[in-house]
């Protein structure tokens, strides 16, 4: 997991630079590729820093404003470093009527953070997700790739302990 795109002297010394350049040259000249490129770039760096966005704009020959516009439009992209584990609590209606709000409150309490915050140790970021289509198991929460269904307030401590 990243702390910043680079803690030292900028993107050009970042060890992940070759990976970035490989993605950029793969999609160069491909019309409409910006979103797919940002997906890949975010999976390399964990988030889309200003520097990374500048490089993408330059390489794909699109205005930086467009890259920034797209990066801020879609909720899967983030412009800030994220905690090591991203917790998403679904507040879709199906989850809401099965007690998702209480789940969210309990997580806030246990981690001592508020919604959209990252814990001081950089371990957890707490977010609300929209319906992820697992409503059959409501209420649902995700931690990075893992999805937990039928979450109860009483089992949250146990789930968080795994991370």
């Amino acid at each position, binding site marked *: 997991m990243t702390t910043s795109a680079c803690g030292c002297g900028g993107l050009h010394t970042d060890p992940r630079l070759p990976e970035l350049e490989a993605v950029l040259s793969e999609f160069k000249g491909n019309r409409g590729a910006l979103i*797919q490129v940002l997906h890949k770039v975010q999976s390399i760096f964990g988030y889309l820093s200003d520097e990374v966005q500048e490089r993408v704009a330059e390489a794909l020959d699109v205005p930086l404003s467009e890259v920034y516009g797209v990066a801020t439009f879609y909720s899967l992209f983030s412009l800030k470093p994220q905690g090591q584990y991203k917790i998403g609590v679904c507040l879709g209606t199906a989850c809401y009527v099965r007690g998702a709000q209480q789940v969210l409150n309990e997580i806030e309490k246990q981690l001592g953070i508020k919604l959209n915050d990252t814990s001081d140790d950089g371990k957890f970021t707490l977010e609300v997700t929209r319906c992820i289509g697992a409503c059959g198991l409501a209420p649902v929460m995700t931690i990075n790739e893992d999805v937990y269904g039928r979450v109860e307030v009483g089992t949250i401590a146990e789930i968080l302990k795994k991370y």
Partner: protein
Amino acid sequence: MRFIRSHILICSGSNCQLRGSLSIMHALEAELIKKGLYQEIRIVETGCLGLCEKGPGMVVYPEGVMYTRVTLADIPEIVEEHLLKGRFVRRLMTQPADGEDKLTPLNMSPFFIKQKRVVLKNCGLINPESIEEYIAAGGYQSLAMALDQYSPDQVIQIVKDSNLRGRGGAGFPTGRKWDFTRRAEGTEKYLICNADEGEPGTFKDRLIIEGDPHLVLEGMSLAAYAIGADKGIIYVRGEYDLSIKRLEQAIRQARESGLLGRNILGSEFSFDIDVCLGAGAYVCGEETALIESIEGKRGEPRLKPPYPAQAGLWGKPTSVNNVETLANIPSIIEHGAEWFRSIGTATSSGTKVFTLTGNVVNAGLIEVPMGITLREVIMEIGGGIPGGRQFKMAQTGGTSGGCLAEEHLDVPMDYESLSQYGSSLGSGALLIMDDSHCIVDLTKCFLRFFVHESCGQCTPCREGTAQLYNIVDKISKGRAAGSDIDLIEKLSRTMQISPLCALGQTAPIPVLSAFQYFGPEVRAHLRGTCPAGICNMKGALANADS
């Protein structure tokens, strides 16, 4: 050849996978090997069986016994009792069984008997990762038949005659949409399959793709043949990992078998499909926003007209169709328009796939003929309301759909009837709420969603959703007056006509219907009481004009 005496079908749909169906499958395999049964019993990974809330589920054939909420600890017992000794493990069974050997067949159990499976015909029966199984179940025959016997215009005519209407929300007649696209000028045309499925409480497209990906591909090929497109794109939600994997795999298999690519099945027809991932924006399900997104831009809806059929992707004629709509096509071509019209009601033909969620015993995926009543769906298929609670309301069509109350339980579920009561079939979400919920609190939950998902492009939607939320929030705190309710009404009417796309136009629907059917409960909040005891009324103002 090995003789197989039993098949065990395990659901590997995403809901069940999340409950560990894959590790259960591996444990079962190990147990069968241990007991020396591996040669005679076959394990098949299938798509969704429908009882998502009770997952993971498995069905043992030939008996057709369904076990639900199976855990790793249950595996030895299932193998020992059922597979070795032939006795059912009753505590895990869903269907009633009166005698030792008498059992209601699965398709006769209350959950299944009222269902009619057209789109889900293979779901839970074949292995979705195998093109051979799809073909063995009759797959790709409709495509072969169409290429061989029908002109594109004839395919369009059959679909028109079938009366099929779009299942993505708007309900536009599919045959007509294809006709417009076919007749639009230009030789370069596109077919887009809309699998963005962002409506809260909806996961049908996901489970259709996961359970039977080739059915969607075949439907797309038929659509492309009809409109004259040689390029198709499936726009899938970025979060739907398993759908993406299954689609990519199915596309690869179809290419290898000559069912996608150049000169399909030796005909003049060439067609290929790409998968494009969404990035988390509800509005991108709207067809013109989706097109913007495929073009790599912010997903802001376009002004219509021109409609996509005239100028869609890259300005070329484009047909955007929902996953479920396309999944109906192979059956319509195979059995004919007449057959399709015989299912459902006079004006709403065919079946509808619903995701049944909320406070209902059998939450999950169902497919029923159009025109079935809400009562049948909730009380019979859904098994009623759990925990001794009472039914309070249902919301059909997703968050932008209307709320229905107890007095609407006998309304037939079809396009016309639901719109009479201010609701819609929409995406097929069917959310059931019991009497522990407060109508004002729920309305706030709906509105929070719209505030967040409004793309911000046009003012009536961006500001309107926020203002609606603020007023309802005020009501929930007991700080509103009767005039606020009038204001909601007025603002809602403005929003229904002024925004650019249906997101803003439909956002007031749940609010209006909720306030119409639950007026007394809403007005109680003006007097500082929440009858359900959910809203925090500390600091409420007493209102004289309520």
